[in-house]
């Protein structure tokens, strides 16, 4: 303490620089380092523990000696040593192992260590068919991005204790089942990549859903999903759907500022948004990604969804929404992937091209069991019944939608709509 007492500022600065450097590496390289460590050991939990410990040591060490030239190499070296120490303790050390480790450390730290990017393998393992589909996104968020279980639990509306247990169980399953961290064959790749893309899209949708509930957390999730989408498009450039997913999230993201009325803070639906508030740069990047997807092959689910968003984005130039194009694309989307969301979207588009009656017939075809607690279904139903002139039906559907809504801004929006009907 005495040595530092005279220079509190520079000591504080060194502390901050070390913490910042460690935070930066953790942020940028966490998944890359976990992937590299786990691909060897096939033990994600062990790799994470070792890396966490290495990060702690890094802060202490870097404070004293300054951050190393290659922080990633430093962390990998130390994490491996920690892992090896554990292994050695468990197995009873062979004589000379310490020397060998030191030599290995020296080699790694001196050579400009190239850290292979194994994140795609790590993501593919997280989205392995043997892993519960509901756990794939949380697992990926944790092991690729290093997000803590409590934040993941909040996003997924699961109790933090339960989420922690489920994440550990999923990692144990990967280790026990000896799932291979290998790239699938060319033939298997699209199917496996799809699970990865689904998980990324789930992360993005979640961020989008909670935008009005918790803006900070929403921003984080959205940024992380965008980051993963860019990463996958980069690591698997031959996958059309990877580029399409990137386009889709960029299109949606370009409208962030327009979703909320700056004066009242109220929710603004897509068709009433001020297109001047849309982010032209993100739209341009989205259009590039969609073109790239288009050159690679047949359209899948994300291709159609991105194309629908591209038509909406074109309203910025043309001033009108091309509903016949949108309806046509929704038809393709429903054929490619008949999800509840796709069918609801198709019905709403159909109202613009064929009328509300036709749209309601389409909506009625959705099995009630799937739709009764799905808030967007009731929002769409209320909208279509209003168009059809069925005031009582619309009032009831709005009531149902309001009762199923989580965030206050959407609830207020729907309540206003219902009141407007009544007056």
């Amino acid at each position: 303490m005495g040595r530092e007492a005279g220079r509190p500022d520079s000591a504080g600065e060194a502390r901050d620089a070390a913490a910042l450097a460690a935070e930066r590496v953790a942020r940028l390289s966490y998944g890359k380092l976990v992937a590299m460590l786990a691909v060897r050991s096939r033990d994600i939990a062990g790799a994470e523990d070792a890396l966490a410990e290495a990060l702690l040591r890094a802060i202490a060490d870097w404070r004293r000696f300054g951050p190393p030239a290659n922080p990633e190499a430093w962390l990998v070296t130390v994490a491996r040593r920690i892992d090896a120490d554990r292994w050695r303790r468990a197995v009873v050390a062979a004589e000379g192992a310490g020397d060998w480790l030191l030599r290995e450390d020296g080699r790694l730290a001196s050579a400009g260590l190239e850290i292979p990017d194994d994140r795609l393998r790590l993501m593919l393992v997280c989205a392995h068919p043997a892993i519960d589909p509901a756990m794939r996104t949380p697992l990926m968020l944790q092991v690729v991005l290093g997000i803590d279980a409590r934040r993941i639990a909040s996003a997924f509306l699961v109790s933090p204790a339960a989420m922690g247990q489920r994440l550990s169980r999923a990692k144990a399953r990967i280790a026990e089942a000896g799932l291979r961290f290998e790239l699938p064959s060319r033939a298997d790749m699209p199917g496996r990549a799809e699970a990865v893309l689904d998980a990324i899209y789930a992360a993005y949708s979640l961020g989008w859903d909670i935008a009005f509930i918790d803006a900070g957390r929403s921003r984080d999730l959205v940024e992380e999903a965008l980051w993963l989408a860019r990463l996958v498009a980069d690591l698997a450039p031959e996958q059309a759907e990877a580029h399409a997913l990137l386009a889709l999230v960029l299109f949606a993201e370009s409208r962030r500022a327009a979703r909320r009325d700056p004066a009242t803070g109220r929710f603004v639906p897509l068709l009433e948004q001020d297109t001047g508030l849309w982010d032209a740069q993100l739209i341009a990047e989205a259009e590039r990604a969609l073109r790239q997807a288009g050159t690679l092959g047949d359209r899948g689910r994300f291709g159609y969804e991105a194309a629908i968003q591209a038509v909406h984005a074109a309203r910025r130039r043309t001033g009108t929404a091309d509903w016949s194009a949108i309806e046509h694309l929704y038809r393709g989307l429903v054929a490619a992937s008949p999800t509840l969301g796709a069918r609801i979207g198709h019905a709403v588009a159909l109202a613009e091209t064929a009328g509300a009656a036709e749209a309601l017939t389409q909506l009625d075809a959705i099995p009630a069991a799937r739709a009764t607690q799905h808030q967007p279904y009731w929002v769409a139903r209320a909208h279509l019944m209003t168009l059809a002139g069925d005031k009582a039906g619309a009032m009831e559907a709005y009531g149902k939608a309001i009762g199923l809504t989580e965030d206050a801004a959407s609830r207020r929006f729907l309540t206003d709509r219902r009141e407007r009907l009544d007056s």
Partner: protein
Amino acid sequence: MKFVILNYVKPRNFADVQPENDPDGPAWGAYTKALLDAGVMVGGAALRPSHTATTIRLSEGRRDLHDGPYAETKEQLGGFYLIDVPDLDAALEWAARNPAASLGAVEVRPLVQG
């Protein structure tokens, strides 16, 4: 499994405020109806404001009464729902839709005899 959902709200958000002064009234009505329609609602009630509460303790055989709620906190228990759902995940889903989640806080607790 049965859970109780406890609604903690600020005093001005209590159920007894005049309907014309309560912008959240419709939201509570819609939420209750959604629980009923889903067939998960077992019971529940809205409570009068916490200043109407009386708290009693017996210490060393003496009654100690005071006006007001057990704990003076910014948000107060404004009501509760008793629901029957398959698991905690489902209970949390319903709790998140509770208007008190954005007005104050919602506490979810499993019942001992679920």
